[in-house]
């Protein structure tokens, strides 16, 4: 385990912070919040140019072969800058399954498209029950000749309107074991019969859609992994996605702490800065402490994934559970300490407050992951 950044990682961090400060100011974040698609092709092009989209892909697929811990450094900075758009969807939700389970032909075709920013990808996994678990995947895909025909509705699909490809988790077989019979199909969104309508979400920096598939054909060639064996691929992706999300949460939480502490130093009430009151100090101290431990667990999780450690799933569950609670607590205090201004739409605090909530529920909330830990003691 390595708990301090090496020189290269320090550079990546500095570069990422500068890049996002220049290219993703809050004015752009708010512009994209108002937009139905929530995606800036200009920004996407620049992100591709700095090599982030291919960061962890091997060089043969147009990537730069860096590791998962390096990637989490970017996510920390993205969480801090509140980067909107389909980076997470493209690289993590769809990119990782293709990287880990795609065949050579698929990897050669799709990974360079991701790395060079040519195409946007996403994943359609959740349905009406809103939970990522095998029973939740009921949308049918039926074989017809060389194709699979998809029918049904997916919910909470991120970035569906920006996406050129949607990786669809479909049910292709029903057996007693719900983990069996799930197949991952990569669907080209130019096909007829795909209807994406935006969901009005609390966190407007993350666009989500209700996507209806009406007799959508997908070539069997575009199955990622084996037929009926898609669940383990999703599960593996989810562990990494969760760790990446934790990094984003810690980065966002640190922005909230810094912004709040600065405000407490400057805001005068009763003739003194409010940060001189113990009640404010103690809340700030609690924010600091929560983020300290959230970061420790997040880095442990990221390192465990990087090292392919057998503890990775445990580390990720512990990190997600802790980061989820910590980010919510930190944003609660952030809003409260800002007082009236923190409750306004114009102040950026609510963006983080809402991000904390949407992140908590994604990939299992704190309670869900705590129960996974409890099971280890059964």
């Amino acid at each position: 385990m390595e708990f301090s950044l090496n020189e290269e990682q320090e550079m990546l961090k500095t570069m990422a912070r500068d890049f996002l400060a220049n290219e993703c100011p809050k004015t752009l974040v708010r512009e994209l919040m108002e937009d139905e698609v929530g995606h800036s092709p200009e920004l996407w092009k620049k992100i591709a140019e700095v090599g982030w989209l291919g960061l962890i892909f091997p060089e043969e697929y147009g990537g730069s072969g860096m590791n998962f811990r390096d990637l989490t450094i970017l996510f920390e900075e993205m969480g801090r800058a509140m980067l909107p758009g389909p980076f997470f969807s493209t690289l993590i939700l769809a990119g990782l399954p293709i990287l880990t389970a795609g065949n050579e032909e698929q990897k050669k075709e799709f990974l360079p498209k991701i790395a060079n920013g040519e195409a946007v990808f996403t994943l359609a996994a959740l349905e009406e029950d809103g939970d990522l678990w095998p029973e939740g995947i009921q949308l049918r895909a039926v074989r017809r000749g060389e194709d699979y025909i998809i029918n049904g509705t997916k919910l909470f699909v991120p970035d569906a309107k920006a996406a050129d490809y949607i990786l669809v988790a479909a049910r292709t077989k029903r057996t007693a074991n719900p983990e069996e019979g799930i197949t991952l199909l990569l669907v080209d969104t130019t096909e007829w019969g795909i209807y994406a309508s935006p969901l009005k979400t609390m966190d407007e920096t993350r666009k989500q859609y209700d996507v209806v598939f009406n007799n959508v054909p997908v070539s069997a060639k575009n199955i990622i992994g084996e037929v009926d064996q898609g669940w383990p691929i999703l599960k593996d992706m989810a562990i990494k996605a969760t760790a990446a999300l934790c990094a984003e949460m810690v980065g966002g939480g640190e922005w909230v702490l810094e912004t709040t502490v600065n405000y407490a130093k400057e805001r005068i009430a009763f003739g003194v800065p409010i940060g001189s009151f113990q009640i404010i100090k103690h809340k700030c101290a609690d924010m600091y402490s929560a983020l300290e431990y959230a970061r420790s667990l997040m880095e442990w999780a990221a390192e465990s994934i990087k090292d392919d450690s057998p503890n990775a799933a445990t580390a990720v569950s512990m990190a997600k559970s802790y980061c989820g609670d910590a980010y919510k607590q930190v944003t609660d205090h952030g809003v409260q300490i800002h007082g009236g201004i923190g409750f306004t739409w114009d102040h950026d605090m609510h963006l983080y407050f809402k991000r904390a909530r949407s992140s908590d529920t994604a990939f299992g909330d704190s309670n869900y992951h705590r129960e996974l830990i409890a099971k280890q003691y059964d």
Partner: protein
Amino acid sequence: MTSGGAEKLEELRREVRAWLRENLPKGWGTPEYVAPEPFSEEQHELGKAWTKKLYDAGYTGFGYPKEYGGIERPPQEIAVIREELARTGTPGGPLSLGLLVAAPTILSHGEDWQKERFIPKVLSGEESWCEGFSEPDAGSDLANVQTTAVRDGDEWIVNGSKCWTSMWAYADWGLLVAKTEPDAPRHRNLSYFLFDTTTPGFSRRPLRQMSGEAEFGEMFFDDMRVPHKNMMGEQGRGWYVAMTALQHERSGGGAFFGGAGGVDLAGLTDRRAAAVESLAELAKNTKRYGKVIWEDDMFRQRIAQFAIEAQAMRWSGARMIAKMRKGMVSGNEASVVKNFQAEMRQRRGDMVMEIIGAYSQLVRGSKRAVDEGDWVYDMLRSRGATIEMGTSEINRNIIAERILGLPRQ
């Protein structure tokens, strides 16, 4: 590392194991072994003798320069030794704040003669230490110390009293903060002394706490004379020396920053209480209103949270070690660790009381008490954890002011 190096380490491991078989107290690790009463003289003497043996064998005393009695070994060897000691468990050291507070503070602030005179005997366990900081009117407001020291030739005459003194009973030496400049402003009116507890005018007595025992003591100074050369740090700068000492105490002298690889919830009086497994075990073995506690989601969640927090502490420790190597860590981080640990311990105690219900009323000494009353004891004792070494409130002020830079009141 070369394979020759690995062989050498294995040889050391065998050597330590053999040494432990030879030297651990009779019956150690078996039910026949009867441990001395906590805080008893017998426990203290056993700890002294054990530390001396370890030191003579070269198995303790790490992290200090050779000229002050430190034992220098490559880190891999130290790791092997610590692993082996942790594997069998050992009787522990004397009842002393020597290793935790005195030695590191003397190393950072002492004169050469003080380092040479005192540190080796801490490392070897020969001399034990206590710390005279708190007073009845100087707790959180430590700068309000009323004990005075008045210069008389080559000596200082000390008058006053101290309370909440840990490891008070058998200490050979004491650390003392006393007011030497009555007219100087706060924080610049105190000096720091090392005093011999056999000096005439010194007396001590136990201070019984809410958990029933007298882990702490009171100390009284009645015209006690301390040689001037025993002042540590500059005259009038005692506050700053005391702050260093407190940081060492809060951070556990670095002891729990990484430990020997395990998760040690420091501050526990009983190993049973340390492990999350034991909480799960208790929940599995306890029924309330006919229902097994471990089947209750609320308790499962809370117990899992302790598992998560234990790991959070462990990896935070690892991160602090990494930062220390880069010289990036300030002693103020100790306040974060200290609060986290103390508050976790308190929450754990409270939860166990909810689990055991009516039995939470039965304390040590009752045949019907759960786990010999240890849980109830720890729940009570943990009330002190958020008060000693800086209350949780003072530590939050330290985090806010010294780490986050918020203005002082």
